[in-house]
C-alpha cells in the first residue's frame, strides 16, 4: 500500500519557508494573504508494516522537537486553501531518494524495483478563498508546470486521495524496439524528420547522412553486422547529438567569408582554430621556456602549472536554455555539470572553487512578457537558489561572480558556471593531466542512473527557445549523489584503477564513450546493461540521455573487480557496459543484437563544414548631447543604484564562499565586510601560501557599438581585476565563453550577416589582445542560439563574452583589497581618462548609447599591470580598485565606503585631454585604469616605480566620512556622506 506521511511544524514554531512564501506572494504578485504554513508530504509506495511506517514517520522523517506527523490522514485542517505541489513523473526527486535510503537503513530491506518514495510540499493559505487566485499563486510563483503538478483544496473539501494513479511513478515497459528510418525521401520530408525528432540537423547534414547510407561499402558492412540499409533511430540520434551545434561547435568551425566596412574581404577557415587556438599557439611560442600551459582545448577543462607539484584546472560553462525553462534545475545542473568537467579532466582533479556570472533582465520588469517566458525575478530567484544548492551542497566555495542586466536577457538568461580544480603534476609517475584509453579497457559508467531526463538537451540548446522546446530537456541535479561519486573517484584515481575518465554531459553516453573511443578507434557498448531509473526507455534514449551525475571510465580488465567492489563499498553505482576496441566502429548492442554500427570516422569527421557569410556595417551611432549635471552627488547616487553597479551582497551571502578554508580575498571586503572585491584569492593547499587568483570581465553594453572593443574591454577588465588584487600578470590564463544570438543568415535571422560579423570582430580582438597581453586561452565554450522566437516576437540577447582569468599569486599575504585603509593615504589614479562614454552606465542612465566605446591600449596597460605587481610585492599599495561600470565616480565611492573613510579628490589632477567636462572625467569608462591608495611613507618609492607612466596623485583619504570632489577651480561639485552613497548602492537588491 501507499503510506502518506505528512510532516508539519508544531504550533508556535516559526515557519521560515512559509513566511518566505508569504513575503514573495505579496512582493511578486501583490497578493496579501494572512498567513502561509508549509508541510512536507512523503508518499511511500513500499511494503511497510504499520509499525515500520510509525518508526519512519517519527524517526528520519520528522524532528520531535519542532514537528508533528500524520499518517494516512490530514495533519491540519486549519486553512482556507491547501495547495500541494509535487513532481511530475520522472523528475529527479532528491528528497524522495534520500527518504528511500533512510527507510532501507531503518528496515534493513532494500526497496524493490517498483517501490519508491515521492515527495511533495503543502502550502496552507489563510486569507484566500478564491481558487483562481490560488491557481495564479501556484503557476506564477510556487511551481513550474514543466516539472511539477499540483492540487488545490479549499476549506471543507476533502484532500485528494493518494493512490497508485496519483503518485508520479513512471510507468512503462522496456522494449528493445528499434525503428528504421527511410531517408530516401524528399527534402521536405528530411527536414520534417529532423524537426519532428528534435534532431536539429540541417538539410545539408541530412543529405550527408542519406548519402553515407547509400554507399555500397557501408551497406555491405552493415549487412555483416545484421543491419539493413536504413539508418536506425539509435544511429540517427547518435549522429544528431554528435553533430549538434552544442557538441560540434559548427559555427566556430565554419568557413567564414567576412567583408568589412571598407569592402575588404577575408576568408577564415574556422574562427576557433584561427583566433582562439591561434592566439594560444602564438602566446605559448612567445612565452618560450616560461610557458605554463599543460593541456589546452583537448580535454573537458584547461590545465596550467600551479607549482612544481600541482596543476590547476579551470573550466567555465553556460547553462542558458535549461535555465530559461526551469531556473532552479537549470542552474543547479549547470554548476554540478561544470564540476564534472573539472573531475573529468586528465585523470581527475579535486574541485577547489566555483565562479558564477549571470545575465538577467531587471527583476523589477513590469511590462507584459511574451508567452513561455518566466518573469525575470523568478529567473533570478531560481538561478541563485540553484547555484546555491549546487555549490554549497557539493562543498565547493563560490568565490567570484557578477550579475549583468539588460532587458534583452528576458529572452534568454545567461548562466555561466565555472569550476577550478587541482591535481598533482604526476600521478603514478605520469602527467596527471594526460590519459589514454587502451584497447580492451572496460567501459564503466558510474554515479547516477539513466532516465528520460535531459533527452535532447544538446540539440535543444542548439536551437532558439520556441513553442515546442522539450520538457525532457529540463533536469534537476543531485549534488549528493555526485559528491559520493567524487569521493569514490579520487580514491580510484589514486589507486590507479582506471586509464581514462570523462563526464557524461551533453549527448550522454553517445558523447562520452564516443569521444573516449577516439583513443582506440572503436567500442562495443551494451545498452541493456545500463542501470535505469525506471522502466520504459528505448535503446536510443539510453544512449543519449543526459541524466546527471554520471562519469564514464576506461578500466583495464585486471582492475575491474577492484573498482566495482570499491564503488559498492562506498555506496556508489558502477556498471560494466562493454569494451573499447580498435574495430573502427561506434557499435551499440541491445541484448546482444546490434542496434547501431557507425564508422568512427563518419560520426566524428563526417559533418559538413558550414559556410558563414559575415558583413560588417558599423551601426549608425552618435554621441548624445547631454547637459552638464547641476547636482553631481545625485547623479553619482543614481549610478550607484543602477542594477549593473549596485551591491550583490544578498546573493553573495547565499553562497558558501569559505568552505575548504582557502578563501583569502573573499567576494566582500572592507571595514563592514560588504565592499565589492575585484577578484578572489584562494589558497588551495592549507600548508602553503601560494595562491590562485580568479577574476572576470564582461561588457555586453559595448557590443551595440562594436563587438571588437567589447571583447577587448572584457579581456582588459578581467586582467585588471586580477592584477588589482595581486594576481601575477606573467602567470595568468584566459577562458572565453561566447554567448551569441544566432548568426546564421536565414528567414528567421535576416540580420545574420551582421551578427556573424560581430562574431568575427570579437574573435579578432580576442586574438589581438591575448597575444598582446601574453595571455594564453586554455579552454572555453560557446552558446550560439540565445534567441527567443514565438510567433513574430523575436528577442536576441546582446552578444556577450565572459572572459574569465585564472592565475597565480606567489604569496597570498601580498594580496591587496579594494577598500581604503587609513586617513592620510594618498589617492592615485593609474591610466589616462579619455572621452569614452559609449555604452557607459552614465549614458544608459540618461537613455543613450553613444558612440565613443572605450578602446584598450594593451602595451601601455601591460606595462602598468607589471608595475602594479612590483609595487604589490614590496607592499607599496594599501588598496587597489578597478574602474569599470560607472567609471571613476563609482570606484571612488566604493573604495571609500568599503573602507569607512572619506576622500578629497581634485578632478583637475586627472590625466585626461584638456577641457574634458567633469561628468566625463567622473563617468568615462576608459579601460586599464586603477584607483590606488598609498601610505604617505611610500609616496616616493611608489612614484619612482611608476615614473614615466600615467600615474596621477588626485587626492587623499580623510577621516571625515564624506566623499568630496572638486573640479580644479576649488569648486566643490560633490560632497556626500559615505552612508548615503552606500545606502544608494545597497538598496536595489538588498531584499532579493
Amino acid at each position, binding site marked *: 500500500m501507499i503510506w502518506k506521511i505528512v510532516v508539519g511544524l508544531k504550533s508556535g514554531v516559526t515557519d521560515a519557508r512559509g513566511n518566505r512564501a508569504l513575503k514573495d506572494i505579496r512582493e511578486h504578485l501583490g497578493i496579501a494573504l494572512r498567513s502561509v504554513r508549509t508541510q512536507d508530504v512523503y508518499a511511500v509506495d513500499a511494503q511497510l508494516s504499520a509499525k515500520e511506517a510509525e518508526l519512519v514517520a517519527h524517526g528520519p522523517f520528522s524532528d520531535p522537537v519542532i514537528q508533528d506527523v500524520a499518517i494516512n490522514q490530514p495533519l491540519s485542517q486549519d486553512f482556507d486553501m491547501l495547495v500541494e505541489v509535487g513532481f511530475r513523473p520522472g523528475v529527479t526527486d532528491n528528497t524522495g531518494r*534520500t527518504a528511500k535510503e533512510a527507510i532501507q537503513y531503518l528496515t534493513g530491506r532494500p526497496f524493490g524495483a517498483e517501490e519508491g518514495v515521492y515527495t511533495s510540499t503543502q502550502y496552507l493559505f489563510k486569507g484566500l478563498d478564491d481558487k483562481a487566485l490560488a491557481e495564479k499563486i501556484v503557476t506564477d510563483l510556487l511551481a513550474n508546470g514543466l516539472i511539477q503538478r499540483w492540487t488545490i483544496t479549499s476549506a471543507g473539501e476533502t484532500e485528494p486521495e493518494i493512490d497508485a494513479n496519483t503518485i508520479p511513478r513512471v510507468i512503462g515497459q522496456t522494449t528493445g524496439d528499434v525503428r528504421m528510418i527511410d531517408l530516401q525521401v524528399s527534402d521536405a520530408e528530411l527536414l520534417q524528420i529532423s524537426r519532428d525528432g528534435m534532431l536539429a540537423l540541417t538539410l545539408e547534414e541530412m543529405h550527408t547522412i542519406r548519402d553515407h547510407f547509400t554507399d555500397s561499402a557501408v551497406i555491405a558492412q552493415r549487412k555483416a553486422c545484421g543491419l539493413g540499409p536504413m539508418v536506425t533511430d539509435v544511429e540517427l540520434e547518435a549522429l544528431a547529438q554528435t553533430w549538434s551545434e552544442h557538441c560540434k561547435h559548427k559555427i566556430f568551425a565554419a568557413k567564414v567569408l567576412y567583408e568589412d566596412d571598407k569592402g575588404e574581404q577575408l576568408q577564415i577557415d574556422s574562427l576557433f582554430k584561427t583566433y582562439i587556438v591561434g592566439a594560444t599557439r602564438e602566446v605559448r611560442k612567445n612565452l618560450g621556456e616560461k610557458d605554463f600551459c599543460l593541456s589546452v582545448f583537448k580535454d573537458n577543462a584547461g590545465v596550467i602549472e600551479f607549482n612544481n607539484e600541482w596543476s590547476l584546472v579551470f573550466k567555465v560553462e553556460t547553462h542558458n536554455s535549461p535555465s530559461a525553462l526551469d531556473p532552479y534545475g537549470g542552474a543547479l545542473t549547470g554548476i554540478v555539470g561544470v564540476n564534472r568537467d573539472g573531475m573529468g579532466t586528465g585523470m581527475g582533479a579535486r574541485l577547489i572553487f566555483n565562479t558564477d556570472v549571470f545575465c538577467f533582465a531587471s527583476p523589477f520588469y513590469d511590462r507584459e512578457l511574451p508567452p513561455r517566458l518566466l518573469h525575470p525575478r523568478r529567473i533570478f530567484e531560481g538561478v541563485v537558489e540553484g547555484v546555491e544548492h549546487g555549490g554549497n551542497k557539493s562543498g565547493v566555495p563560490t568565490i567570484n561572480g557578477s550579475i549583468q542586466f539588460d532587458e534583452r536577457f528576458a529572452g534568454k538568461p545567461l548562466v555561466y558556471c565555472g569550476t577550478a580544480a587541482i591535481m598533482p603534476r604526476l600521478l603514478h609517475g605520469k602527467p596527471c593531466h594526460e590519459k589514454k584509453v587502451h584497447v580492451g579497457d572496460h567501459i564503466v559508467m558510474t554515479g547516477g542512473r539513466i532516465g528520460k531526463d535531459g533527452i535532447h538537451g544538446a540539440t535543444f540548446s542548439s536551437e532558439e527557445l520556441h513553442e515546442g522546446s522539450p520538457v525532457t530537456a529540463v533536469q534537476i541535479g543531485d549534488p549528493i549523489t555526485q559528491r559520493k561519486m567524487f569521493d569514490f573517484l579520487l580514491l580510484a584515481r589514486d589507486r590507479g584503477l582506471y586509464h581514462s575518465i570523462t563526464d557524461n554531459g551533453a549527448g550522454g553516453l553517445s558523447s562520452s564513450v564516443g569521444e573516449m573511443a577516439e583513443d582506440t578507434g572503436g567500442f562495443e557498448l551494451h545498452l541493456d546493461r545500463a542501470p535505469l531509473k525506471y522502466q520504459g526507455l528505448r535503446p536510443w534514449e539510453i544512449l543519449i540521455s543526459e541524466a546527471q551525475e554520471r562519469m564514464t571510465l576506461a578500466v583495464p580488465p585486471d582492475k575491474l573487480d577492484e573498482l566495482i567492489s570499491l564503488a559498492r563499498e562506498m555506496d556508489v553505482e558502477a556498471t560494466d557496459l562493454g569494451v573499447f576496441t580498435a574495430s573502427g566502429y561506434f557499435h551499440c548492442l541491445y541484448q546482444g543484437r546490434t542496434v547501431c554500427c557507425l564508422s568512427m570516422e563518419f560520426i566524428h569527421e563526417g559533418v559538413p563544414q558550414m559556410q558563414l557569410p559575415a558583413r560588417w556595417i558599423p551601426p549608425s551611432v552618435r554621441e548624445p548631447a547631454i547637459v552638464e549635471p547641476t547636482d553631481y552627488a545625485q547623479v553619482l547616487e543614481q549610478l550607484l543604484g543602477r542594477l549593473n553597479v549596485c551591491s550583490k551582497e544578498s546573493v553573495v551571502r*547565499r553562497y558558501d564562499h569559505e568552505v575548504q578554508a582557502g578563501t583569502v580575498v573573499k567576494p566582500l571586503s572592507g571595514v563592514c565586510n560588504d565592499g565589492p572585491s575585484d577578484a578572489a584569492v584562494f589558497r588551495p593547499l592549507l600548508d602553503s601560501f601560494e595562491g590562485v587568483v580568479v577574476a572576470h570581465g564582461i561588457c555586453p553594453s559595448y557590443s551595440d557599438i562594436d563587438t571588437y572593443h567589447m571583447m577587448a574591454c572584457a579581456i582588459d577588465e578581467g586582467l585588471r581585476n586580477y592584477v588589482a588584487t595581486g594576481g601575477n600578470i606573467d602567470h595568468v590564463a584566459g577562458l572565453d565563453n561566447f554567448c551569441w544570438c544566432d548568426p546564421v543568415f536565414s528567414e528567421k535571422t535576416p540580420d545574420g550577416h551582421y551578427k556573424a560579423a560581430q562574431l568575427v570582430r570579437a574573435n579578432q580582438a580576442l586574438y589581438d589582445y591575448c597575444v598582446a597581453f601574453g595571455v594564453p586561452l586554455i579552454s572555453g565554450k560557446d552558446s550560439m542560439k540565445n534567441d527567443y522566437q514565438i510567433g513574430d516576437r523575436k528577442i536576441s540577447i546582446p552578444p556577450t563574452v565572459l572572459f574569465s582569468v585564472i592565475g597565480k599569486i606567489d604569496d597570498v599575504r601580498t594580496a591587496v583589497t579594494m577598500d581604503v585603509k587609513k586617513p592620510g593615504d594618498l589617492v592615485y589614479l593609474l591610466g589616462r581618462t579619455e572621452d569614452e562614454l559609449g555604452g557607459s552606465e552614465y549614458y544608459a542612465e540618461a537613455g543613450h548609447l553613444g558612440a565613443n566605446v572605450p578602446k584598450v591600449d594593451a602595451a601601455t596597460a601591460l606595462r602598468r599591470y607589471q608595475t602594479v605587481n612590483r609595487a604589490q610585492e614590496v607592499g607599496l599599495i594599501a588598496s587597489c580598485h578597478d574602474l569599470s561600470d560607472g567609471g571613476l565616480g563609482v570606484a571612488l565611492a566604493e573604495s571609500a565606503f568599503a573602507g569607512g573613510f572619506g576622500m578629497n579628490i581634485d578632478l583637475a589632477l586627472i590625466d585626461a585631454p584638456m577641457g574634458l567636462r567633469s561628468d566625463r572625467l567622473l563617468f568615462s569608462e576608459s579601460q586599464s585604469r586603477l584607483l590606488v591608495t598609498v601610505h604617505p611613507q611610500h609616496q616616493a618609492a611608489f612614484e619612482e616605480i611608476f615614473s614615466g607612466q600615467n600615474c596621477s596623485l588626485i587626492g587623499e583619504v580623510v577621516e571625515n566620512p564624506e566623499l568630496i570632489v572638486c573640479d580644479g577651480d576649488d569648486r566643490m561639485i560633490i560632497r556626500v556622506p559615505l552612508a548615503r552613497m552606500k545606502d544608494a548602492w545597497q538598496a536595489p537588491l538588498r531584499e532579493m
Partner: protein
Amino acid sequence: MIANVRAMVISGFGTNCEREVAHACRLAGAETDIVHISTLLTGRVRLDDYHFLNLAGGFLDGDDLGSAKAGANRLTHARVAGRQHSLADDLRRFVAAGKLIMGVCNGFQLLVKMGLLPSFDSDFRQSCTLTFNDRGRFEDRWCNLQVNTASPCVYTAGITEMYLPVRHGEGKFVTDSPQTLARLEKDHLVVARYADASGQPTADYPANPNGSVAAIAGICDPSGRIFGLMPHPEAYLHRTHHPRWTRENLPEEGMGLQLYRNAVNFIAADLL
C-alpha cells in the same frame, strides 16, 4: 606532535569540511585521519582507536529530510560489517569512555538530532534542535561570539570571545521546552552566543544570523567533552582567513585553532 593523541574526522555522504578540520587537528598536534563513513561501516577502522572525534560541516545526504536527519538515521541503523551493532553503539561507547567529540555546523546538527547533545543524564534523548534560519535563507557571515567562561566545555577553556563565520541555512537553535532551556542555562551548557559589536548576546539580525533562542550558537554536554557549534572554528586558523586581514593587525594564528589545541591538550593530560 603530542604523543599519541589520535583524532578522527568523519567524511562522506555530503560532509564537506573534513580537510580543514583535519588540518586544524594536526596544527593542534593530533595524529589525524580522515575516515569515510563507508570505511567505518566495513569495520576495518574502529572508532575505539581514537580519542577525538570530529563531525565536520557539510550537507549529510543533502540535508534532504532536515539537516543531518538522514545522516543520524544512517549512524543509528546501518550495521558495521560482521558485527551486531551500529555506529551509534560505537559512538555511545566512545562517549562512555570519556573521549571527546566536536561537531561543527552539520556535525552539531547531527549531535543534537542523535540525542548526544545536550544529553543531560546520558539519556541520548533529543531535546533540542537546529532548524531553518528565521530569514529562510542560507547565509555566509562572520559573527561575534560571547563565550560562557562558566561552562564546563573543555574546548573553550581560557576563551572569552570569538569571531567566526556561520555558513548555514538551518542554524536556529530551539529547545523542546522552557525547562530544557533553563537547565542548559543553569548547568552552563550554553558555550557560545551570538553577540553584537559590544560583545553582548543579541536577538537582532544580522549579529544573530538565524534567530536562535537565547542567541545560542553552541552547547556542550554536562561533561564538557561533547561540544557542538554552528560557526566554523576551522575556518579561522590563520590571520588570512579573517575577512579584514588586509586592514587590521591580527595575530598570525586564527581564533579557531585554540579550540582544537584545548581538546588535544585535554586528551594529553586526561586520557593518555
